[in-house]
C-alpha cells in the first residue's frame, strides 16, 4: 500500500533512533509526538536569537519576540479557523479545561454531561466542582452518544466530550452534541487533544463554545497548549490566575484586567513553546489536513482489519463505523501469562515497536469494561502501512507462539 505522506519521515530525526541496535517503530503518538526538524529549528532559533519577554519590552528584540509570539497565535487561529483573539495559550489541554471548569463558577449540585471514555483531564476538573453525568457505554466501550438528550437536566451547566477519544480512536458526533446543547442554551467544550493531529478542525463549523488542545501531541513542543473560546464565553469566565501581563491598570485601590486572550495568560508565557507550536501547525496545514485525515483513517482501517484476525482480541469500540476511526486502536489481547503491560513491553524489547500499555488515563472506561489494562497503537502523519504490518505481524507471532 502506498503511503502518500511517507516523504515526511525524513523530517523527524527521532525516527532514526535505535534500541539495542535496531531501528524503532514509533506507534505511540497519542501519548506524545516526535518533532519535525522545522519545529526543532524554530525552538533553537528562539534560544539563539532572542532574549526578551513578550508584551513588555520596548527594544527591538522584545518587539521581535512579541511579533513571533503573536504570529504563532495567528497560525493557531488559522489552523482552527478562529480569530486570534479567541486563542489563549495554556500549558496543555488539561489547563485549558481547568480554566473553563474554574471560570464557570460551578456549584456541587450543578451537572456536567460527558462520556465515560473521557481522559482524566476532561473528567477530574469537572468532578472536583460539580456532579458528573456520563452517557451510557456499549459493551465494547463505544459511548452511546444518542443518550445525550436523556441525561441533560435542569441542573446541566456544560456538556463536554473528546472529539476523538484517546482510547476509542473514534471521531465523536460533536456537531450533534453542539446542536443539542445549544438548543437548551448550554455551552459545549471539545477536547481536541487527539483530533487536532488527525482531522481538520473548524471551530466555526463545529460551533463549539470552547476547544482545547496540547502542543506536544501536535508535533509541537511540550508545555504549550491552546484554549479556544468564543469571545463572549471567554469574557464571562472568572479569572484563573492573576499576575503580570494580564492586567492593564493596577493601583492601591483597584486593578483592571486585560481583554481576552491576555486576561488568561498571566505571567511570562511559554514563548518558545508557542512559537514552536505555530511552526508545527503551519507545517501540518502545508501538508493538508484532509490528506492527513485520509492517511490516518487508512491506517486505522488497516489496523482494525488486521487486529480482527487475531484470536482473543477485544478492540475497544469495535462496533463503531470504520469510517469514523482514525489511526488509533486500543485493544485487550488475551495471551495467557501476559498482562497488557507485559505485551507492550515485549513489543518494545523483542521488536522495538513502541506502543502504550496500561489505562491511558481512562480508568473509568477500563473499569466499566472490566479490563486490567489495554494496549494502544497510535499513528501520526509519518506512520507507514509497512509499520502497521510490522506490529500486526509481531502480534500474530506472539499469539501463535503463546496462545492455544
Amino acid at each position: 500500500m502506498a503511503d502518500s505522506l511517507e516523504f515526511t519521515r525524513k523530517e523527524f530525526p527521532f525516527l532514526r533512533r535505535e534500541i539495542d541496535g535496531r531501528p524503532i517503530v514509533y506507534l505511540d503518538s497519542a501519548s506524545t509526538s516526535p518533532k519535525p526538524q522545522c519545529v526543532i529549528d524554530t525552538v533553537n532559533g528562539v534560544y539563539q536569537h532572542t532574549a526578551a519577554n513578550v508584551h513588555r519590552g520596548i527594544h527591538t528584540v522584545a518587539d521581535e519576540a512579541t511579533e513571533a509570539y503573536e504570529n504563532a497565535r495567528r497560525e493557531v487561529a488559522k489552523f482552527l479557523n478562529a480569530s486570534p483573539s479567541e486563542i489563549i495559550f495554556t500549558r496543555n489541554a488539561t489547563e485549558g479545561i481547568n480554566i473553563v471548569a474554574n471560570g464557570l463558577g460551578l456549584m456541587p449540585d450543578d451537572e456536567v454531561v460527558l462520556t465515560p471514555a473521557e481522559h482524566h483531564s476532561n473528567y477530574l476538573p469537572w468532578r472536583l466542582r460539580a456532579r458528573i453525568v456520563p452517557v451510557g457505554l456499549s459493551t465494547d466501550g463505544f459511548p452511546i452518544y444518542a443518550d445525550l438528550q436523556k441525561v441533560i437536566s435542569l441542573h446541566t451547566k456544560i456538556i463536554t466530550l473528546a472529539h476523538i477519544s484517546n482510547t476509542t480512536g473514534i471521531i465523536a458526533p460533536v456537531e450533534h452534541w453542539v446542536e443539542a446543547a445549544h438548543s437548551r442554551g448550554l455551552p459545549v467544550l471539545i477536547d481536541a487533544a487527539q483530533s487536532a493531529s488527525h482531522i481538520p478542525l473548524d471551530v466555526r463549523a463545529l460551533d463549539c463554545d470552547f476547544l482545547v488542545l496540547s502542543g506536544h501531541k501536535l508535533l509541537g513542543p511540550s508545555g504549550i497548549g491552546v484554549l479556544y473560546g468564543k469571545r463572549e464565553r471567554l469574557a464571562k469566565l472568572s479569572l484563573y490566575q492573576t499576575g503580570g501581563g494580564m492586567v492593564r491598570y493596577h493601583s492601591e485601590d483597584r486593578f483592571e484586567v486585560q481583554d481576552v486572550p491576555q486576561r488568561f495568560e498571566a505571567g511570562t508565557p511559554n514563548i518558545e513553546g508557542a512559537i514552536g507550536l505555530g511552526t508545527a501547525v503551519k507545517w501540518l496545514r502545508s501538508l493538508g489536513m484532509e490528506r492527513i485525515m485520509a492517511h490516518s483513517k487508512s491506517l486505522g482501517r488497516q489496523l482494525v482489519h488486521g487486529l480482527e484476525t487475531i484470536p482473543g482480541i477485544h478492540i475497544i469500540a469495535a462496533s463503531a463505523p470504520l469510517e469514523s476511526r482514525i489511526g488509533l486502536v486500543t485493544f485487550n489481547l488475551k495471551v495467557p501469562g501476559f498482562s497488557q503491560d507485559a505485551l507492550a513491553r515485549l513489543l518494545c524489547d523483542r521488536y522495538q515497536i513502541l506502543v502504550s500499555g496500561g489505562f491511558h488515563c481512562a480508568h473509568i472506561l477500563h473499569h466499566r469494561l472490566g479490563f486490567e489494562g489495554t494496549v494502544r497503537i497510535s499513528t501520526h502523519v509519518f506512520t507507514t502501512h509497512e509499520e502497521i504490518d510490522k506490529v500486526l505481524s509481531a502480534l500474530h507471532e506472539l499469539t501463535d507462539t503463546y496462545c492455544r
Partner: protein
Amino acid sequence: MAALPVLTKKDLRSYVPDGFIAEKYKCKEGFASGEIEMESTSGTAEERVSVVWNQKWWDRSELAAAKLNAVLNNIFSRPHREAVLATPACSGNLCHVGESPMRERTIGNLLFLNQTPDPTAWDNKNIRRMVEELESFQPDIIEADPAYLSILSKACLSAGYTLCQPKCIVLTYEFPSQIHYRQIHRAFPGIPVVSSYGSTETGHVFTQCEAGSFHQNTATCYVDIQPLKTKFGNPDLGRILVSTLDNPWFVLLRYDVGDIALLNTGKECSCGRADGLIVPGVEGRTRDITFDTKGRIVTLKQLDDALEPATALLNYHLAQADAQHYSMSYEADPATQLNSADILPDILHRLYSSDAIIEIARDSALVPEQSGKFRLAHTAWPLQAEEFF
C-alpha cells in the same frame, strides 16, 4: 564456565521468553496452565527487562535461601506471616495503583504494606496506618527495601510510635546502607537483620548467615564472579554472574545481574556452612560505581563504609561529574549533633584522592528514582560493564 560469554540484559530483551526456555518445555503450555507468566523488573528504563516468572521455582529458591540463615530457617520451617515493605506491588509504571484496604493487600501469608511510590511523601496518616497494620498482622518477618524501612523506622521513632517487633527483618530490593541499618536497629532493637541478595531474574542468590557472610544458594543457582581488570582496582572485586538451576522456564547462563561482590579471600565462614561460594559482601550495583581521580573503581559499599563516621547522615547521594569533580547531597538528622558537614570533605578526599574537587550540600529530602529505588551514587556518564571486567 569462564569461557562462556556473559548474558546481558540486552540479550534478555532480545530473546525473552523463548530463548531461555528449555527445549522440551513448551512455553505455550506453561502460560496456558498458569505455571508461568511474563513480568517486568522494576529497574530504570535502561535496566528494565521482561522475565518469565515461575512462582513455584521462586518459592523453592526462597525456601532454599532461608536455610542459609538459622533464624530464617527456623521461621520458614513452619507456617509464618510476612509483611512486605517496598515499592507498590505493581511493577508496571502505567498500572492503576490506588489505595486499597488491608484485606486486599493481604495475599496468603503476605501483607503488602506500602501503597505509594515515594516513601519520603508518607504523612503521619500513612505511618500510623502501617504501624497499626503491623500490630494487627503480627508478622514473623518484615521483608523490606532498606531505604523504606529506614524511613518508617525514623518516622516512628520521631512520633513515639511503637513498632511491632518481628522475629527477623530481611533486607532486599536494593543495597542496604549503614544509614539504613542505623535507623532500623534503633526501631527494632535486638531483632536479627538479614541481608538477602537476589533479583526477579535469578531468584535468591545469596543469603547472609548469622556470622555475616553471604552464602550462595546452591539449590537454585550457580554463581561465578568475573574479576575486575587490575587497572580499575582490586581484582578481588568482580561482577556477579548467575546461572539458574532447576528452572526450565527461565534458563540463564552466566547472567550479569548488574551487581558487584567482593570475593572471599579463602577464609572459611564461622557459621560452618561450606557449600557454594561464600563472599564477605555484595558491593552494590555496577551502575552505581564511581571512580577516584586515578580512574580506580570505588564501589558503593566502599563509599558507604567510608561514610561510617558520619553518623548523623540520614541519606546521601554522590554524583561524579567527571574525573575530578564530585558533588554530594545529604540529609542529616536535625535532632542529632551534626558532625557530617565537617567530616565529609575529609572522608571523600581520602576515598577519591586529595586532588578531587568536592562540593557538599545539605538537602531536606532526597527522593527515589522513578523505579521507587534510591540511588546513592552515580557518574554523569553511562558505564559499560564489559569495559571493567
